[in-house]
C-alpha cells in the first residue's frame, strides 16, 4: 500500500469476498487502536460491533454481490479497547490479480452520528405526535359517527313519535265524535224549547249534559262538569252519562239521581285514590203543567232563571260536588215559573273568561231574542274574549225557553 493511501485521511481496507481482511491502512489501525498488521487475515467481523456483524450479512453482502458496490452505509466499528466508532462506508468490488476483492473507504463520523441521533430522536417524537394526532382524528371521526347515529336514531324516534301523535289525534277525534254523539238532541215543542252548546277543549271534554222528556209534561235536564278535562275526565263523563240517562228517563227524583251519581263516583275511585275526580252537577225537573222547576245543585255554578218581567233568580248550589264526600244528603229546591220564562245553565268554562255579570246582563238586555239569537250572542262574547286560557277549558251551556 502506498504512503498516500496508508495515511490518507480516511480508513481504507481491502477484503476478499468472504469478508476476510487483506489489508487495512494505517489511518484505520490508529483509529481502531490496533498496531502493525495484526488485522490482516482476520475477518471483518473482528472490527464490527455485534449489531454491525448482523447488518453486514443482511445488507452489505447481498448488495456488494448484486450491485458490485455499496454507498454510504452506516456501520459501527469496535476499537481494540471495545469503544464504538461510527463510520460511513463506501465499497467497490473489483477483480485484482484474478481474484475478486472489495475495497472499502471508511469515514469516521462521531460528530455527525451524534447529530443524526438527535435527528432520529426528533423524528421519533414527531412520529409519535403524528400517531397521536391520527388517533385523535380517528377518535373524533368515531365520535362524529356516533353523533350521526344518535341523530338518525332521534329522527327515527321523532318519526315514530309523529306517527304516534297522528294516530293519537285521530283516536282523540274519534273519541270526541263518540262523546258528542252521546249528547241529546235539542227539544222544541209547544211547552218548551231547549238548545245547547258544547265544545270540548283541545282534547276531550269533562262536561256532559242531557235533556229528556220524561212524560208529556215533564222534562229532566242535567249538566255535569267533571273536574279537569282530557281523556280521564271524558271517560268519567261517559260512565256518568250512561247512568243518568237511565235514571232520568225512568223519572227518578233529582235527589235520587244525585245520590246514585255520587255513589257511582265513590265506587269508581274507592280503591284508586290517584284517579279520584269529583264532579259538579245540576239537575232540573221541569213540570210544564204545574209550571214548576225542582232542582238539585251539587257544587255547580248557579243556573239562571229569568222571569218574563226580567227579574232573575239564581238556582244556587246547596250541596258539595258529587264524589267529594260520602254520605251527603241531596236536597231538592223548587221554584215556580210563568210562561215566557227563560233558563240558562252553564259550566265554569263559559263564565270564567267573562265578567261575572256578563251573562245575566246579556239575558236581561235581550228578553225578546230567540234562543238561537241568544246563543249567538253568548258565543260572540266568548269569541271576543278568546285566549289561550279560554281555549283550555271545556265550554257548555244550555238555554231553555219556558212557554
Amino acid at each position, binding site marked *: 500500500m502506498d504512503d498516500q493511501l496508508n495515511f490518507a485521511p480516511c480508513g481504507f481496507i481491502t477484503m476478499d469476498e468472504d469478508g476476510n481482511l487483506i489489508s487495512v491502512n494505517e489511518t484505520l489501525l490508529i483509529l481502531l487502536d490496533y498496531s502493525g498488521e495484526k488485522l490482516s487475515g482476520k475477518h471483518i467481523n473482528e472490527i464490527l460491533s455485534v449489531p454491525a456483524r448482523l*447488518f453486514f450479512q443482511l445488507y452489505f453482502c447481498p448488495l456488494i454481490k448484486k450491485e458490485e458496490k455499496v454507498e454510504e452505509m452506516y456501520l459501527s466499528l469496535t476499537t481494540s479497547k471495545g469503544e464504538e466508532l461510527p463510520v460511513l462506508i463506501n465499497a467497490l468490488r473489483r477483480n485484482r490479480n484474478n481474484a475478486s476483492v472489495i475495497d472499502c473507504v471508511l469515514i469516521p463520523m462521531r460528530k455527525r452520528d451524534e447529530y443524526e441521533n438527535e435527528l432520529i430522536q426528533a423524528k421519533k417524537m414527531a412520529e409519535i405526535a403524528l400517531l397521536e394526532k*391520527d388517533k385523535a382524528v380517528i377518535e373524533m371521526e368515531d365520535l362524529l359517527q356516533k353523533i350521526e347515529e344518535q341523530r338518525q336514531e332521534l329522527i327515527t324516534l321523532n318519526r315514530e313519535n309523529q306517527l304516534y301523535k297522528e294516530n293519537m289525534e285521530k283516536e282523540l277525534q274519534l273519541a270526541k265524535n263518540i262523546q258528542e254523539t252521546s249528547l241529546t238532541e235539542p227539544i222544541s215543542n209547544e211547552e218548551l224549547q231547549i238548545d245547547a252548546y258544547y265544545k270540548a277543549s283541545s282534547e276531550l271534554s269533562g262536561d256532559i249534559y242531557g235533556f229528556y222528556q220524561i212524560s208529556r209534561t215533564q222534562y229532566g235536564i242535567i249538566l255535569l262538569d267533571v273536574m279537569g278535562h282530557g281523556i280521564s275526565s271524558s271517560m268519567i263523563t261517559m260512565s256518568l252519562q250512561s247512568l243518568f240517562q237511565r235514571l232520568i228517563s225512568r223519572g227518578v227524583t233529582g235527589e235520587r239521581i244525585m245520590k246514585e251519581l255520587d255513589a257511582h263516583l265513590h265506587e269508581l275511585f274507592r280503591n284508586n285514590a290517584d284517579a279520584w275526580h269529583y264532579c259538579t252537577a245540576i239537575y232540573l225537573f221541569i213540570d210544564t203543567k204545574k209550571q214548576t222547576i225542582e232542582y238539585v245543585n251539587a257544587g255547580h255554578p248557579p243556573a239562571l232563571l229569568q222571569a218574563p218581567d226580567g227579574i232573575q233568580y239564581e238556582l244556587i248550589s246547596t250541596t258539595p260536588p258529587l264524589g267529594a264526600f260520602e254520605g251527603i244528603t241531596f236536597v231538592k229546591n223548587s221554584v215556580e215559573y210563568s210562561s215566557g220564562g227563560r233558563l240558562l245553565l252553564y259550566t265554569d268554562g263559559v263564565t270564567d273568561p267573562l265578567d261575572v255579570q256578563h251573562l245575566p246582563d246579556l239575558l236581561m238586555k235581550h228578553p225578546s231574542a230567540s234562543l238561537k239569537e241568544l246563543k249567538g250572542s253568548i258565543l260572540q262574547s266568548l269569541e271576543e274574549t278568546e285566549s289561550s286560557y279560554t281555549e283550555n277549558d271545556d265550554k257548555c251551556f244550555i238555554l231553555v225557553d219556558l212557554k
Partner: protein
Amino acid sequence: MDILARNNVKVKGRGTVPMLFAPGFGCDQNVWNTVAESFEDNYKVILFDYVGAGNSDLAAYSPDKYSTLEGYAQDVLDVCEALKLENVILVGHSVGGMIGALASLEKPELFSSLIMLGPSPCYLNDPPEYAGGYEKEELTGLLDLMEKNYIGWANMFAATVMGNPQSPELSADLEERFCSTDPVIARQFAQATFFADNRKDLPNITVPSLILQCTDDVIASMEVGHFVHENTPHSTFRVMEATGHCPHMSHPEETIRLISEYLAGDMANFEKKKTGDRV
C-alpha cells in the same frame, strides 16, 4: 385481490414441479437470480416478494398482519393458492425457511419438501439450553443500525405506512428496490424475524426438509443449525463449505448442487413411498 401483482410473483422455467423461492429478511427475490435460474430447465420456478418488500404492493401492507411471521407465511400460502400449486418444493433463505416451515404447518398437503438455508427458530439466547447467538440489546442495536441507514429518505415512506391521510399513496414507484424498502416495514419485519421464537414449531413439521448450514454464519450458527436438525422430523442436515449467511449469493454452485442432490434423493424416496416400500 390480485395476489400475483401484490406479491410481485414471477413464474419461470420449463418444468412442471413447482419450486417456490422465499427470500430471507432484507432483500427481494433478486437474491435468488443465480440459483433459481439453474432450476428453470427442470422445474417451474416461482419467485415473489413479501408484501412490503421489493416491488410488492405497499398498499397491501397491514401492520397487524405482518407483525408476526405467520402473516408472511400467509403470503406464501396465498401465492400457492393463486397459482394452484401442489407438491411445492419450498426453498427459503434464513427467515424465509422458517416462514416456509410455518406455511407447511398450516397446509402440509401443499408441500413436498422444505429446503432451508441458514434457518434459525430463535435468534435470542435462552440460557442454559439454547444459544440463539444474540442478546436482546444486540438485536435492538441492529434495528438502530437499520434506522441510521434510512436517514434521508425515511420521511417519504414512513408517511405511507402510517396511513397518514394527508399524504396520498406512494407514487407508482417501481424502481428496483432490492434491499431497501419502507423503513417502518423493514423495522417491523426485523422485529418479527429477530424476536420470533419458533422452537416449539419444529417438531410439528411433517414435510421432509433439508437444512443447509454455512460455515461461520454469524446469523445462524452451526449450533443453531444442529438444533433445527435435531428438532425437525424428516430433516437432512448438510454443512456447506460456503461461509457467511448468503450461500445462494456467495456460493451459488454449491447451493445448487446440494439442493439438486437432495431433490434427487428425495424424489427417489418419494417414488418409493408411492409404491409402498419402506423408506
